[in-house]
């Protein structure tokens, strides 16, 4: 289990190795990598800046991760979220879940992403090719996605 908030890029392979290498009790490993796209609903994106709430971010990510570990039998889990200025193609977020069985790993990864999108204090600002920038609006979809875990 672990949570990291960092400006630097991450390497998915070495993160997975660090938590699963040499272990023979893990049957399923899921990684979710979120990346900056070059457009947002048709609007071209030159760069994206991620602001966050230092201190609360780490606490909230730890709460979300603990929540996932309480709901599913996970052998390992990891959340890494980047901050600062990023370009299209750059990594933003990594979620890794490992379990004995595939459904736990897949569901926990979906849960972590849904909760991360609706509870972790990050804000994205997009800058277009002419330098104009705007804050990304929260998607209704993300709230809906997160609510599906409440009744389970």
């Amino acid at each position: 289990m672990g949570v990291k908030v960092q400006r630097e890029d991450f390497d998915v392979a070495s993160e997975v190795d660090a938590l699963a290498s040499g272990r023979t009790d893990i049957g399923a490993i899921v990684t979710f990598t979120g990346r900056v796209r070059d457009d947002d609903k048709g609007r071209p994106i030159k760069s994206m800046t991620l602001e966050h709430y230092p201190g609360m971010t780490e606490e909230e990510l730890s709460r979300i991760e603990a929540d996932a570990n309480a709901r599913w039998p996970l052998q390992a889990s990891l959340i890494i979220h980047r901050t600062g200025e990023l370009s299209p193609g750059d990594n933003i977020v990594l979620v890794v879940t490992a379990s004995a069985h595939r459904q736990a790993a897949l569901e926990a990864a979906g849960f972590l992403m849904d909760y991360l999108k609706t509870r972790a204090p990050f804000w994205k600002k997009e800058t277009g090719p002419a330098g104009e920038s705007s804050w990304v609006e929260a998607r209704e979809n993300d709230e809906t996605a997160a609510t599906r875990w409440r009744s389970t």
Partner: protein
Amino acid sequence: MSSAHPRKVKLLYFAWVREKIGRASEEVALPDNVATVADLVTWLKTRGPEFGEAFARADVVRAAVDKTHVKSDARIAEAQEIAFFPPVTGG
């Protein structure tokens, strides 16, 4: 509670809330009649037009008390740090 000991609290602003208010943080002495987060917003709006603009859509702005998400009816009590920000958009 006596106003001889005003409660000091750190306020933090993020994303467009920060931009509209024009600063990232400040320390304020809370008036006695500020009991909840909603009370705090009402009081902040009396402090200048920048707060009026930041909280124009008060139902959109979210709050955290001591780094925990809260609703606007949450009591402030002995909070050290209260943050205001738009709905989060990470991930």
